[in-house]
Structure formats: structure tokens, C-alpha cells
């Protein structure tokens, strides 16, 4: 018994030593850390260690792995290799993407149907879509969603320098069967604008379940009215109050259905045929839509009107046209 107690005592003394040693080690290495990395209120400057990537740096210094693009954008011309010196901005200053040479703009792409092979402009063949996504991936484009775009439009947060949004209208089944797997391959998300009359009705349309699956995977779902109605067109024999009531219903009921089916607050809207007028904008705002897209070609700066955002339809299949749409910067001297 006695020897056992003595043994225990010895053990605890040794453990104490080891712990003390460890503590000493950590303290000495903590000083090493600060010496290897320079830090001020505005920046961190560090020399890359083995296996350090923008992801791990973002996690370590910005507290969020998903902010890797902040580090990549701040070190554009530098390859992330061992011993390279990297600058990490700690303050989000340039929310509008403004420089002395111009300002950032965001292209929003618009697709409809997908197929293995098809000829209509509104239908994108799978292999061409794949080519386009590969181009985005290989050329440093970051596919963002409307939540991020809203942060930019409301001047709350900056977005990646080469940001682009992928949007798909109407709710064709081929979005799930063909487009979704290609997007996932590159880690991209898209925003779907669906008209509720079409969902679940045939083998050509998406189901609510498929929409829920994509939503859970990071996709956004927006409204596109109930019946894909031209919101600016009064029907023959329809008086103005009846017309107004119909527009209001198209916008209100589609929002209610999507809200309920997907358990969300739908704030995104795409005008069918890209058609809208002041009246439509007024009703949309009143019903709680915050962001709406048109099919007016072009890109969007931070001061764009969030209810009439420009969107470019990807209709042609050649890469030259596709690349010409991907403009991320508008040059204008701001000195």
C-alpha cells in the first residue's frame, strides 16, 4: 500500500513536469507565431506554411472558411505556395467594389430548359452548359446567390470580385435531371424562378420535392407568377380593376404557395417575359418582394435598382458570346 501511494505521488510529479514543459513550449511557440505573422488592425501579412490554402487561412484569420475569396482576391497575382507572402485584409472597406479605374458589376445569367440535344434558343444542350460552367470554374468566377447580391446592392457586404449569378426560369424537369448534376460538379448554386401552375403537373416539370432537395443544397427559389402571365397586358374585355386584381393575385398567390411549400419567405421575383411597369413594381414591393429581375441585357453595379435588375439570357451556344457576357468591371476614371 505504501509503495503504491509513493508511486502515485511520483506519477503526479512527473505529469506536472510534462505539463509544465508543454506550457513552456506553447508560450515560446506563441511568440514564434506573432513573429511569423504580422498583424495590424487593417491587415495580416504572413508567410505561407506547407498545406496552407485560402480556405484554411480564411478559417484561421477570418473565422469563416467560406471567405476564402477575400484572401484570393487580395492576392490576385500570387500563387498559394510555401513561403509566399500573403496579405489578408481584416476590414471590409470596399463594399461597392470601387477603384480609381471604375467599379464592380455583376452579370446575372438566365437559362430555361436543358436537354441532351436541342435546337431552340431557350434550350441549352448539356455539353455546352458543361463547357460554360467549366469556363467559369477555370477562370476564377465565383457563382454567388441573391442573398450575397442583396448584401452588395444594399451596401452591407462586399462580394467576390468576379461574381456571377446563375438563374433558371420556369421550372423545367431538365433543371433537376441535367443542369443540377453539372452545377454540383463545380460546386455551383443557382436560383430558380418557377411559376407555380407548372410545378408537379407533368413529367416535364419540376416537383416540389425536387425543389426542396435543391433548396437544401443551397439553391434559391424565387417566384415567376402563378400562370406565367404577362403582368403588363390587360386581357380583352377585362376592365382595369379586374386587371389590377389579377396582377395582384398572380404575384400574391405564387408567393404564398412557394412560401408554404418550401417553408421560406420568398423575396425574389422574375417578371415573365421580362415585362413590368411602374404599377407592377409597386404591387411587387407591397407584397414583400425585395429583388426582381428582368431580361434587359447588362450587368449590375452596387447602385443598381434591386427591383429591375439586368439579366442576360444565355441563348447562343458559342463560347465567345458567353464570355462577352461575363463582365465584372465597368471602367470609368474615378479620380
Amino acid at each position, binding site marked *: 500500500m505504501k509503495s503504491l501511494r509513493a508511486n502515485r505521488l511520483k506519477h503526479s510529479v512527473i505529469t506536472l513536469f510534462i505539463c509544465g514543459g508543454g506550457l513552456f513550449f506553447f508560450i515560446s511557440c506563441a511568440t514564434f507565431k506573432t513573429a511569423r505573422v504580422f498583424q495590424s488592425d487593417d491587415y495580416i501579412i504572413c508567410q505561407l506554411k506547407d498545406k496552407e490554402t485560402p480556405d484554411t487561412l480564411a478559417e484561421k484569420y477570418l473565422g469563416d472558411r467560406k471567405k476564402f475569396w477575400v484572401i484570393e482576391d487580395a492576392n490576385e497575382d500570387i500563387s498559394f505556395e510555401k513561403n509566399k507572402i500573403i496579405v489578408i485584409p481584416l476590414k471590409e472597406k470596399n463594399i461597392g467594389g470601387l477603384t480609381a479605374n471604375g467599379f464592380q458589376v455583376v452579370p446575372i445569367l438566365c437559362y430555361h430548359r436543358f436537354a441532351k440535344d436541342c435546337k431552340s434558343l431557350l434550350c441549352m444542350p448539356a455539353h455546352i452548359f458543361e463547357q460554360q460552367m467549366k469556363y467559369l470554374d477555370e477562370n476564377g468566377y465565383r457563382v454567388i446567390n441573391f442573398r450575397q447580391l442583396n448584401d452588395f446592392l444594399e451596401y452591407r457586404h462586399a462580394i467576390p470580385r468576379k461574381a456571377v449569378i446563375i438563374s433558371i426560369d420556369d421550372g423545367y424537369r431538365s433543371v433537376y435531371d441535367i443542369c443540377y448534376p453539372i452545377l454540383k460538379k463545380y460546386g455551383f448554386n443557382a436560383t430558380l424562378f418557377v411559376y407555380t401552375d407548372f410545378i408537379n403537373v407533368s413529367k*416535364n416539370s419540376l416537383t416540389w420535392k425536387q425543389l426542396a432537395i435543391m433548396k437544401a443544397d443551397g439553391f434559391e427559389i424565387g417566384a415567376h407568377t402563378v400562370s406565367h*402571365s404577362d403582368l403588363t397586358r390587360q386581357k380583352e374585355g377585362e376592365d382595369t380593376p379586374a386587371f389590377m386584381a389579377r396582377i395582384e393575385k398572380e404575384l400574391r398567390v405564387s408567393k404564398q404557395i412557394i412560401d408554404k411549400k418550401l417553408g421560406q419567405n420568398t423575396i425574389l421575383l422574375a417578371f415573365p417575359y421580362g415585362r413590368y411597369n411602374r404599377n407592377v413594381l409597386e404591387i411587387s414591393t407591397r407584397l414583400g418582394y425585395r429583388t426582381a429581375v428582368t431580361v434587359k441585357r447588362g450587368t449590375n453595379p452596387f447602385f443598381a435598382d434591386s427591383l429591375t435588375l439586368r439579366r442576360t439570357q444565355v441563348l447562343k451556344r458559342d463560347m465567345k458570346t458567353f464570355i462577352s457576357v461575363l463582365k465584372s468591371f465597368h471602367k470609368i476614371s474615378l479620380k
Partner: protein
Amino acid sequence: MKKIRVLILGVLIVVMIGGCAGISGITEKFTGSKKKALVQTYIRNGQEYENKGDLVQALKQYKLVLTVDPKNKEAIEKSGLLEKNMRVLAQEHYRKGLKLRKKGKYQLARKEFLTTLELQPDHLEALRAIKPKKEISAKKYIIHTIQPGESLAMVAKTYYGDYKKFPIIAKFNNMSDATQITVGQKIKVPEIDGVALLTKKQEIETGEKYIIHTIKPGESLAIVAKTYYGDYKKFPIIAEFNNMPDATQITVGQKIKVPEIEEMPFLASKHEIKTKEVKAPDSVGLDRETIEDEGHAEEEPIDEVANYRFLGIEHFNNKEYPAAIVEFNKVLNANPDDKSTREYLYNTHFQYGIALFGKGDYLAAKKNFETSFSYNKDCDKCQDYVKKSGEIYMETHYNRGLSYYGNQQLTEAVREWELVRSIDPNYKDVEKDIQKAKTLLERLENIKKSKQ
């Protein structure tokens, strides 16, 4: 045992201290000569940016110096000075922007506000100035033609009794510069709440001058618009002038009237072309490129409605009738009078009806033949098929009802017969048969109850 433990502990401590010393040795290298080099690079970069007039980037470089060496005198001094200068400059640009905006030079004002924000991202007034205001909504407006010597402010005075209200008109007409108006230009003067329009005389557009243009192969109405007005997007004017229900439905050789409109340049007239054959001018009037147009202004506009029609036609050709119907209906939603789409819908529903008829789905077939007929009242075949599929449907279910009845499956028999009755209550003895079966069913129920 004891000695071994002490030894291990000793070795451990040596390794720990040694290890750290070793690493800090490397660190020393980085913070020593490398540190100096870094500071020098950043200072050099800072000076370069300053020379280029890019103060924001210059300040960043000095801040980087201070990150590496917080006590660097040059960087402390320069960054302090730059920060001060930038604030002053930002304010200058903001004031300049305000002045320009007051004068109605909106696009130039915006550039100043953007510069303000570039220099000072938290300049909230500049941010507010640049964000789009709510569009002026007015249901009624008057068209006013600018007279010689007339400014927008004078127009505001005429209609609103107040010179200062000209921005309302400028915004309503989406002008990027309120001073850039020309004599003869037609502008919309909106009627707005709280401001009574002093003059109510409505000017009526008379422009009845037009040129007859013959459509050439590959030419669209948008191309014609581009030829005469220098702008693809003006094609609806031509469509409306020619009472076309669908601007995409033009044929080669078709003669269309291209109206001359006062507020727009009429390019063809400059080329002195007055009759049929019109060559596209080599150079076209360049639109002022605005930020919004992003250089896409010169592209042919997309006809979203026509695209849906093409999609429908492709489905139709692939015999994918339900998918084709979805697309054709989208066309009619936007363009109820689209002739070719109505024709396609008639055909698609008919073909789909035939396919369903072949599969034995007579009720669905009947519905499609009915819809087909609604698009083409001359379709006798449609009516024949409506009748035929209806009759086969009723006969099938009537007979099924009979055989259920024979097997004493009364509920099933009633169900079949009710399907028949929903189409035609007077079909054979269906009404009587249903009553008979129901009475029998009731009796059976009563017997069951009494037994319990």
C-alpha cells in the same frame, strides 16, 4: 526506473526548448532582412500609387508597412496625410456632385458621387445620392414638344408653376442630363400628386410621314428599326404603325410603313432614300453609351415570346405534345392573337388527341379534340373525334357497369355508370340503371343493419 524517467524528462525539455529556438531562428530570418525588404517594397508601391493619383491604393501600401513595422516614421506620416487629404477630396467631389445634380447633369453627378465613395466608402450622403430613388409614378402625362429657347426648367414652370420642379420631368423621362434637350424633342410631363398641371392642352402627334420599306431576306423588324432610327429597340413603333399583332411575323417581300417620328433621328431620310429599296447605312447613329447599357445597346433585342414559340415548335416536331402545349400557351399569355401559335395549338391538341385515342384514354382525347376545335372552328374532324371518343368512352364504361352489376358488385357498377352520366345523362338507360343499383344497395344495407 527513476533515472530513466528523469532522463526522458530532460530530453523532452531539451527538445522543446531546442525546437522552439530552431523555429525562432527561421523567424528571425523573416523578420530581419526580409522584413526590411517588405517594408521597402510597400513604401515604393505606395509612392508609385501616389504618383498615379490612386490615393486609396497608396494608403493601403502604407498601412501594410505599418502592419510589418508599426513604428515606421515615413509610413505613419504619409498615411496620416493621405487619410486627411482623402477626406477633404471626398468632400470636394461630393459638393461638385451636388452642384451637377442641381443643374440636372445626372450622369456627371453620379461620377462625382462614385469618386466620393471610392475615396471614403462610409460617406453616407454620397451613398444616398447615388442609390436609385423610387421612380416617379404617374398614370397620366402630357406630351410636350420643346420649343426654341425652351429649357426643362421653363417646361416645369409652364406646367407646375415652379422652375425648381424640372427634376421630376427629367427623372420621368429617364434623362441622364436635363440640360441636353433639343428643339422639337417630345417629353412626357407627368401629372403628380400635390402638383396641379397648369396647362391641360394635349398635343396630338400628327407624324403621318412614312417610308415604305420592303422586307429583305434575313431582315427582322428590329433590323429595320435600326436602319431608320439607329436603334433596334424601337421596332414596336413600326409594328404598331402597321397594326401588326406580332412583330416577329414578317415575310420577305412584305411592304411595311416606317413612320417618321419627330423625337427620333430618321436615318434613312438623311440618306435621301424615299421609296422601296433601302440599303442599311454603313454607319449608324451611336447611342450614348450609358453604364446601364454596358455596350449591349447595339445588339438585337430578344423576343422572349417568339423564343417560347420556337421551343414549342421543336417539341411539336418531336411529337412531345404536352410540352409543346405548355410553351404555346406561354406565347398566347403574352400575345393572345398570335396567329401561328393558335394554328400550332390547334394542330398540337389534335395530334395529342389522336395519340391519346390510340392509347384508349378516350376522355383525355375528347378534351384535346375540344380544345383543338376551340382554336379552329372549321375543324369538322375535331368535332367528329369529340363525338367518337365520347361515345367510345361512354360505351366502355356503360358496359363495364353492366358486367359489375351482373357480378352483384353494385358500388363499382354505380361508379362506372356515373362516369357515363357525367358526359351524357341521357345515354341509354344510364339514369334508370343508377337508380336501380342504388335502391338495391340501400335495401342490402337495411338487411345488414336489421341482422345486427
